[in-house]
């Protein structure tokens, strides 16, 4: 995989440079280089390491009416991602080496992004019996992260054992923090909007209490805990205290929890239904500040495609979740870069470097330097586009940003020297 990238500004800094890529590795960086015949002119573009999403639902196997590994990989690559972690709440559940290996193999066959299966913590996501974490970790799929996402590992004994067991395997347990006793029947963030709409309240305490409990358990076990989709200001406070106390805890926030609030719910359109729910403006502000400060480590999309029949219903009957892979960068630029909370190096940190570190990926999220893999997202910082769900690569079109004009476009994505997308089109 040989490639010449010209006029690129790594991290949006300094004078434009050229990069020579041979066999998928950067061999030279400097002004005005020449080399391989395949050329990518990056005039005016920001060069970033390819993005790593720790949290996506690719729906295959079992949910192919909403997304497949092929269409999800295309959406990811078009969004600037080069690695995606696929959550295990499929049918069948990815709780055995057979299923995770299938997901890995399909991802490799598609070849647009590195698809890393996330294994289930418990058999069938039922929260009772630990799944074969070791077998999945040692399988060819090399599972790095385990989660019952969509459901919380609610039983404190099961969670404790999983954390302890995972510590010997050097893998991460990612918790969907939701005390389901506090969210029985819940439909929307518990606050003034839900009260007016008559939607049963989803209290933020359901998240905060589980995060506090799990931080205590992780501390005791000396294990690595990852908190999925932080949505509340007080969860941020719990994380801040735990990190200060030396707990090995990391956390993610979704683009939609950085941008959207429950004010979007007034028309009862379930495209805004998501778990955890869209919360109040004070929560989005706290999440942005925490991401800037590193209390929240990474942005993860929680890309959750749902075919129209699962969303074109009354609110209570709709499935929670929204598309995120192709809009993630733009939402991060809009909520973090434009207000001055992150620079491009910061974007690289939260979308690439830090997520790769958390799960120990050796060839993703690397610095832009000679000898490093040529795995990049090339971003037009001045690009503006209007989101149209039907035009996105996913089979489902449940984007909450329909019709919104967002900043920054992904012009090209490069995976180990191979151009996977260019000008909004997938290159196979």
């Amino acid at each position, binding site marked *: 995989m040989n490639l010449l990238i010209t006029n690129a500004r790594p991290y949006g800094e300094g004078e434009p440079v050229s990069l020579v890529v041979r066999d998928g590795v950067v061999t030279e960086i400097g002004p005005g280089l020449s080399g391989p015949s395949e050329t990518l002119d990056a005039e005016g573009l920001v060069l970033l390491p390819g993005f790593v999403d720790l949290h996506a639902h690719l729906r295959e196997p079992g949910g192919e009416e909403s997304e497949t590994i092929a269409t999800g990989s295309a959406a990811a690559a078009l969004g600037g991602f080069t690695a995606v972690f696929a959550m295990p709440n499929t049918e069948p559940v990815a709780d055995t080496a057979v299923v995770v290996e299938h997901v890995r193999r399909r991802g490799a066959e598609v070849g647009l992004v590195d698809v890393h299966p996330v294994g289930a913590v418990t058999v069938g996501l039922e929260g009772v019996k630990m799944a074969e974490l070791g077998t999945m970790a040692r399988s060819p799929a090399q599972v790095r992260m385990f989660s019952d996402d969509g459901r919380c590992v609610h039983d404190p004994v099961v969670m404790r054992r999983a954390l302890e067991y995972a510590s010997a395997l050097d893998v991460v347990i990612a918790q969907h923090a939701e005390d389901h006793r506090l969210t029985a029947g819940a439909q929307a963030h518990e606050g003034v909007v*839900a009260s007016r709409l008559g939607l049963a309240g989803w209290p933020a305490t359901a998240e905060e209490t589980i995060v506090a409990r799990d931080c205590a358990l992780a501390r005791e076990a000396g294990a690595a805990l990852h908190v999925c989709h932080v949505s509340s200001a007080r969860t941020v406070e719990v994380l801040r205290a735990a990190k200060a106390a030396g707990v090995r805890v990391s956390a993610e926030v979704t683009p939609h929890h950085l941008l959207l609030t429950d004010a979007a719910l007034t028309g009862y*359109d379930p495209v805004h239904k998501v778990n955890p729910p869209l919360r109040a403006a004070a929560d989005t502000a706290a999440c942005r500040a925490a991401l800037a400060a590193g209390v929240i480590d990474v942005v993860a999309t929680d890309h959750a495609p749902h075919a129209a029949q699962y969303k074109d219903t009354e609110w209570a009957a709709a499935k929670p979740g929204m598309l995120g892979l192709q809009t993630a960068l733009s939402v991060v630029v809009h909520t973090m870069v434009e207000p001055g909370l992150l620079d491009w190096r910061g974007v690289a940190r939260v979308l690439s470097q830090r997520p790769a570190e958390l799960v120990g990926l050796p060839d993703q999220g690397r610095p832009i330097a000679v000898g490093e893999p040529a795995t990049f997202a090339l971003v037009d910082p001045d690009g503006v586009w209007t989101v149209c769900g039907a035009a996105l690569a996913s089979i489902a079109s449940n984007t909450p940003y329909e019709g919104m004009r967002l900043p920054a476009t992904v012009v090209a994505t490069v995976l180990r020297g191979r151009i996977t997308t260019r000008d909004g089109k997938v290159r196979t």
Partner: protein
Amino acid sequence: MKHLLSVSDLDATAATGLLDTADRLKQALLGREVRKLPTLRGRTVITMFYESSTRTRVSFEIAGKWMSADTVNISASGSSVSKGESLRDTALTLSAMGADCVIVRHPASGAAHRIAGWADRDRASTGTHTSIVNAGDGAHEHPTQALLDAATLRDRFGSIAGRRVGIVGDVLHSRVARSNVFLLATLGAEVVLVAPPTLLPVGVAQWPCRVSPELDAELPALDAVMMLRVQAERMHGSFFPSAREYAVGYGLSADRAALLPDHAVVLHPGPMMRGMEIAPGVADSSASAILAQVANGVHVRMAVLYHLLAGAPE
């Protein structure tokens, strides 16, 4: 007015206009041998109820029949609903058959909003303009209930502005409470909610009303008190310890009713749990307007159908 989904669709002028029309229709029917007006002849009104209901469904049906509309009733059992058809397909099917108005009750908050949205979106393909009336959606709203309550208060007091109305009981799960709080505020009344904290929604502090934990302290200054139904299943959710303790704290006993001013009126949306939220003697007393509410319900619903299907009178 295209649909009636929420009392927030109504400003004071529109709400008063509906109440005035209800009055006029009531007068027009008074003393008639045949209680039938030709107003909606040839129009089709469908009630689609996904929850059991007697009074609201019958009230809408009578309202339609008294104005000569063709009324059809559909309930969730005994139709394609029980075969797993989506709400959207059911609603659009009725719309395509030429329903001028679909009156919907559904356990999900926002169901009527969704149906109205689909009906508007698919109007081109179905070729029908279908008005949607919310007859109760989850814990969200029951706008015609609030309108008939307002009509009842207006009958008693002449006007609503400046009157103080207490709403007592399970506000959290009550669509009647939500519609009443916001409509009464629009019409200039002062609303006081009285309930244990477990039966008040988080966020109630931002509603246009006051909240009080103490019923006895409020009663002497109320012009009207509206007792909400308490559903038995709430007791299993630890919202309050027992029916007995609830009745002691929040039930309208005869002793407690005596604290009300002489002119005050007692309302209940029904169905009542006599002995729990209201004592039988109070429900049947001269202060009680509970049956007047039911009678006004028909006239208010006639007015709603009239404004939706024939247009508001000049």
